């Protein structure tokens, strides 16, 4: 019965992945990354249930902490870019190429 949860986590991960690749606003891209991390959490917890040990659940806590740290740093970087350029679009930031 845990299979459904794995499928759900794979779907969430795919939605996040496609979102990162197609959306243009840095904040939305970042939200999609967070969705991917949460899909991982769901998978970890499901596998923990399936195997009957706690490793996966503990890992999920670590992932939450890491995701929180990532939010702090990510939003700081996106905010500096927004204040400089008045835009958070990843297409506008294109000085570095070739």
């Amino acid at each position, binding site marked *: 019965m845990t299979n459904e949860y*794995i499928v759900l*986590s794979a779907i969430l*991960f795919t939605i*996040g*992945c496609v979102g*990162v690749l197609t959306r243009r606003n*840095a904040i939305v*891209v*970042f939200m999609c*990354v967070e969705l*991917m*991390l949460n*899909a*991982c959490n769901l*998978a*970890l917890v*499901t*596998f923990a249930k*399936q*195997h009957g*040990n*706690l*490793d*996966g659940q*503990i*890992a999920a806590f*670590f*992932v939450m902490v*890491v995701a929180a*740290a*990532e939010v702090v*740093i*990510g939003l*700081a*970087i*996106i905010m*500096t*870019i927004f*204040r*400089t*350029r008045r835009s958070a679009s*990843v297409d506008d*930031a*294109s*000085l*570095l*190429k*070739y």
Partner: protein
Amino acid sequence: MNEFIKPTVEYFELWPLLVVFGVACLGVVVEAFAPRSARYVAQVLLALGGLGAALVGVVLIARDSEVYADGAARGVLAMSGTIAVDGPTLFIWGLVLVLAIAGTMLFAERHLDGGVSAFAGQAAALPGTEAEREASTRGLDHTEVYPLLMFAVFGMMLFPAANDLLTMFVGLEVLSLPLYLLTGLARRRRLLSQEAALKYFLLGAFSSGFFLYGVALVYGYAGSMQFAAINEAVRNDTANQSLLLIGIGMLSVGLFFKVGAAPFQAWTPDVYQGAPTPVTAFMAAGTKVAAFGAMLRLFYVAFGADRWSWQPMMWVIAILTMLVGAVLAVTQTDIKRLLAYSSVAHTGFLLTGVLGVQQTSALADGELTALQAVLFYLATYGFATLGAFAVVSLVRDSGGEATALSRWAGLGKESPIVAGVFAFFLLAMAGIPLTSGFVGKLAVFSVALAAGAWPVVIAAVVASVIAAFLYIRVIKAMYFDEPVGEGPTVAYPSVLTATTIALGAAVTLMLGILPGPLLDLAALAGEFIR
């Protein structure tokens, strides 16, 4: 439910890790309480002292390390088996610490830009505003970069030592997050720097998402995060192979991104160009060392029994990386981007080494294992890269560093010493005899040949030839081209940068003439604890 077992902490073996982490935290406290005028000296001394103490610790641990249970490896499993302090770990710790000491000295350089460091005076002030001008006239300086550097070093030490998937993920993030911030803190060309930070962060977070899903899938397959248990499952359990294979693939995406292997190399040139040059120098050398250490441990210890599944993938990635790196480097017009693509090509050479023979027992006396060859190559690459980027920070014009390749024309006349040292680093990267690069390349190519990966070695030789053309082109520009306009000027560095460049050049020369001692040291490192 399992009974709770109180973990024991092996303080002696973990001393280098703990001292680096402690110094990083102390740096944050200094930042909060010390007066602004005292912070620079306090932070630099604290960082150098901490790194030095950790390095002494590494030497002491290496001297005392004893043979681990099964006899092939030396060291201990610390923290209930989550951190392996074995020979390869100690080698990488030592290497990362030496590179970090050199990196700290580059961070602390204040002579090149009129008494201020390469970092933004006040990162929160918008570029081109009154606030930024005020910060720069008051001579403000972000001394937070030193604690950030120390946190990154801590991550770089934890990442290759991790003996389970969760610790490895935490190490990956601790190493990456400070580097994202450091990338965005350049004093000059701040738009480029901020853009580089944004790109590095978004792509890095994306790739660590893949890494984490790989962790979840491999955990789902093996029922444990410990590498030894995963290895056990790979040997005995043939059910759910698809979970394992997809998991390996996704973990590889995360690791290949960190080392900058094609097709995940797109961030490398942008970030290397946009980041402040001291950060680029440290990051290019340190991240690659740490990430290759982690990659070797993951693939050899956890997935060693499933070699036939991942080796074909590694063949393709290695060939692709070398050719993409070498060919795109030829088309570059910016010296930092050029070095970035050259580092992509070096990633490919290192991956060639990863394909080599793993077991000492499969080799005749005196032959290298893949692990030893890769460790040696990492040392040669790390010092040459650090030195080359340190030289880049010296060549300047009125707008800061002159990174356009056209501005480097005639450097040989302007400053024969700087041009000569840079040419030496380039020759080392090209793998010319009497430099460390030659011995390193020879080592990785021969282990790959011994394992029968001859198509990869042929591609590596072709890529080396293409890359050699590129390095020679830069040398020609420096010595034989007429300078455009005024030509470049060479800033006179303080003893900090000079020492770093001298260290890089000395190690590169020594390893080219006398590679024996370091090869012996790599051989002493032995194997991973399995």
